[in-house]
């Protein structure tokens, strides 16, 4: 079973490029459109989401042999439990109704059989590798998003250039370049109350009168960031019409992503995460644990897309998960840790409505180590394309050290 889209070079200029460094003339051309107010949102599904049940290879008979109780039924009109067909070979899990609409509107694409080449099946190690961008190396201290921020100067400096909607700064954003962890926009500054202004005033005075060469300037940025976010008036935010955020923490997170982007405070990189994807037991098929998560997941992201509206021309959203799951189900009607996965790319700049990558097949000899979906697209190729062609990054070799992220390897899901 083959997917469409084997990439090919458009311009011979690209053929000259090696080692991930884009030649100056191309960089300038790319920078003309890329990088201007462009935004990347990375959403991490922690726990290893089951790509085979999310983007279902319904034309493969093996899929149904391997998953007798949890496989998603072949598309059938009128059947609400069946896969939502995409291109005759693949279909969405029925809970991804919201994504199907985006797919039909060409705002959403899929890269299947993608992920990290390292064979670890440890959640911690694999998440680490995917966040540091150096699969196999455990001692990388910083994350690839931080390296992007470090090596690519901002158009306008902003404390909010790299933001994560988590309680702590994740590995992917850790490093020398400044990045902010915002657990919740409302809770960013000091607790509201009668003494808030007094407390802030005292702190500003203290740091303002200090000659500490390191702490004083940092504090200055801190107070500015707090004021800036407050001026955005988060309490009054109302989403655009048609943006239907699902209840629950993920919906809330997506809403805050929209808020941050629309408030124009210089956000360029946003990171968010969602957990609970580790379905070893009773994963469920068309109904069940995975279905519930997928419903929230797709509705939340779709609401974000709708809320951003026209702004989506500047925004690309990429989903990641540390690895996929075993091709066959296990004895507990769940799946175990696997290898390659399906990831989503969304945005106005994405040539959506298609699947990208190369499908390796599910026959036993085609599986990785005889058990998992094999990898045909490295996640760094997907992100590399976004970083270079959307954000205008030029130092890809520094962002993904040790990886030969040449532009000719890109899957080309971004519109030229």
């Amino acid at each position, binding site marked *: 079973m083959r997917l469409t889209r084997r990439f090919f070079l458009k311009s011979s200029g690209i053929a000259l490029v090696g080692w991930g460094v884009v030649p100056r003339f191309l960089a300038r051309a790319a920078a003309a459109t890329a990088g201007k107010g462009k935004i990347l949102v990375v959403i991490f599904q922690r726990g290893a989401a089951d790509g085979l049940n999310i983007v279902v290879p319904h034309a493969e008979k093996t899929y149904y042999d391997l998953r007798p109780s949890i496989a998603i039924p072949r598309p059938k009109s009128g059947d609400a439990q069946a896969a939502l067909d995409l291109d005759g070979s693949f279909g969405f899990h029925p809970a991804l109704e919201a994504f199907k609409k985006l797919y039909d509107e060409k705002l959403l694409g899929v890269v299947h059989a993608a992920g990290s080449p390292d064979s670890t099946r440890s959640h911690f190690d694999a998440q680490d590798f995917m966040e540091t961008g150096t699969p196999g190396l455990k001692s*990388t201290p910083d994350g690839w998003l931080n390296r992007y921020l470090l090596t690519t100067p901002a158009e306008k400096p902003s404390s909010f250039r790299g933001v994560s909607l988590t309680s702590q700064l994740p590995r992917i954003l850790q490093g020398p370049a400044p990045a902010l962890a915002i657990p919740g926009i409302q809770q960013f500054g000091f607790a509201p109350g009668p003494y808030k202004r007094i407390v802030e*005033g005292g702190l500003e005075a*203290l740091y303002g009168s200090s000659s500490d060469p390191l702490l004083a300037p940092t504090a200055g940025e801190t107070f500015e960031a707090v004021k800036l976010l407050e001026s955005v008036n988060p309490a009054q935010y109302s989403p655009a019409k048609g943006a239907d955020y699902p209840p629950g923490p993920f919906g809330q997170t997506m809403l805050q992503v929209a808020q941050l982007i629309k408030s124009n405070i210089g956000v360029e990189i946003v990171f968010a995460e969602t957990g609970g994807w580790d379905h070893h037991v009773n994963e469920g098929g068309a109904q069940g644990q995975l279905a519930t998560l997928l419903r929230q997941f797709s509705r939340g992201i779709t609401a974000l897309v709708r809320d951003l509206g026209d702004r989506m021309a500047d925004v690309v959203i990429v989903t990641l998960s540390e690895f996929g799951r075993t091709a066959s189900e296990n004895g507990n009607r769940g799946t175990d840790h696997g290898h390659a996965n399906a990831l989503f790319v969304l945005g106005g700049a994405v040539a959506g409505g298609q699947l990208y990558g190369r499908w390796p097949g599910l026959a036993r000899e085609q599986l990785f180590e005889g058990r998992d979906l094999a990898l045909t697209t490295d996640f760094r190729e997907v992100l590399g394309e976004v970083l270079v062609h959307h954000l205008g990054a030029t130092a890809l070799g520094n962002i993904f050290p040790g990886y030969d992220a040449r532009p000719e390897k890109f899957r080309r899901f971004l519109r030229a």
Partner: protein
Amino acid sequence: MKRRRFRSLLAVLLTALLFLPAPGALAAGEKSPITIPDTGLTEEQKIVHLLNRLGYGPRPSYALRASEGRPSDIERVKRMGIAAYIEQQLNPATIPDEDVEQRLAGFKTLQMTPFQLLAAYPPPQLLRGIEQRLAPEMGMDPDAAGAMFPELERYRELQQRREQQAGENAAKKEDEDPVRRELRRQEQMTPEERMQQAMASPARIVLELSQAKLLRAVYSERQLEEVMTDFWFNHFNVFIGKGADRWLTTSYEQEAIRPHALGKFRDLLGATASHPAMLFYLDNWLSADPKADYDERALRQRYAATLREQGTYPGALLVEIFRQRGMDPIQAQRYIARQLDRMNEPPNSRFANRRPAGRAPDGQPRRPAQQQQRRGLNENYARELLELHTLGVDGGYTQQDIIEVARCFTGWTLLPLQFGPRFLYVDQFHDRGAKRVLGQEIKNGGRQDGERVLDLVARHPATARFISLKLARRFVSDSPPASLVDKMAKTFRETDGDIRAVLRTLFSSEEFWSPAAVNAKVKTPLEFVASAARATGAEVDDLPPGLVLALRGLGQPLYSAQPPTGYKDTADAWVSTGALLNRMKVAMGLAANRLPGVRVEPPAEALRVESTRQLVTQLGQQLLGQELSESTRAALEAELAKATPALEAGGRQAQARLALGWLLASPEFQRR
């Protein structure tokens, strides 16, 4: 939960003890090998600097309840003499530490071995395996099994509902979805309920260990020992969140780190290399000669034999789990027989055979998914041993050295988790060939190959330099002078890695006592929180662990540094917009008594002063151990004046708390 302390008598006794020369310390009149050079600092400045470096900051008199006759830390050091104080701190066994020991007495997980921890707080996968496979095999009634493992009650509930729903119509309200109900239930739990739930699970181990570390930092008299334990744990980092390490880290700190923190480097190195926590964390337990020819069955028999030698047996852990949950041990023993049979069966990769349903395309029954492949050489530990633990990244080793070191450590493995993890040397995994490490030939000596490597690297001059550099970074400044590092390295080499001796060199150096070194370091979150608690005389309960939770928000959740490099000890890692904001919030929260389990009272003397200026001056002096700068004092005074109308109802108390919060958040307090 509060601790009761027997105050007056004990306090007097302790105060007396602190002045008596204890065995092992210097006798009265005996000169310390430490000499404090004259670098222009006053004696008080020296003492504050020392307490900020050798420990977690000075405690002012009100923090020690001066009314009971206990002098402040500064006073005490003045009376003893700086050199004598340092010498005493270098011999922690001579320092009584009853307060801390009483506070920790209720933390039962601290006293438990990994085996006991696994039995009392089993990992969820083990419980699930027991409930779903073992219990039916043993003929247990599923309800009885469920009752024995209440943690799994919810899972069974969800399972039942799902099976029910499978037959029903798809159209369903979200509210009835059991997973969403569970999510909502979790959200609606009160903090107390959440804490209770955590305390009955493996999370308790992390909680108690973290809270114990914090309590020691705040209350222990053996401050240098605490600082060195923290230093070495970070140097030989393990991540408590990685799989089995959750049950191994307590023992790691207590047995491999703390006893050697002020001893000989080679002993410390050896203890960490062979501890299960490190073997698991850096994967050496998986490492084996790829050419090794071993039989899985023979291996299992070896495990069983080892267990018997140690007076236990395979399945002892499971029996203990059942016994603790009220099951009749005879019933549990029935399982043992089966387990021993299993020892002789073909290997399976998991707790029990798990066969996927259905048949493979060729009509054969499916084989269980192989989770573990054939073992091969794992370089992880070898690399970090050279790069992070000893020589350092520029220490002059090559990639080939890493491979050779890895070959030497093949066979250094563990008894698997379910038997109660312990170090085990398995010769069948060992690479028998000759190896060449850093120019030295190592002929096959089995387990001794690893020991030889440790001898080699411990004595390597690059190691002396690297360790001295890290110590100087911790104790002096982010870029310590080369002259100091050289001196310390020389002592390291000459004393064969005697940590005490190296520290004596450090504390006698001009570089340490130089005015340039004073307040040169930015506090890490742990140092910030511990020094804040000490400086304010905060009363920290054992539960809820407000300060430990604050540390998570500040980016230093204890024992949870994922990469082997541990937490960074330089300012750039801890000073950023977000980090500074969080520190300020913690400071204000602490002063306002908003951190659960921590109470701060403004000192009585401060509440009795006449003017705001006096309040600020006194609090500043007490908190920082030194006079505030004129600009800081003026700024605080002005802001307090502005605040006074709004604080009217709270009076002096409110003013004092506000000033305390500001002082804790001030740039001066972020430094040490």
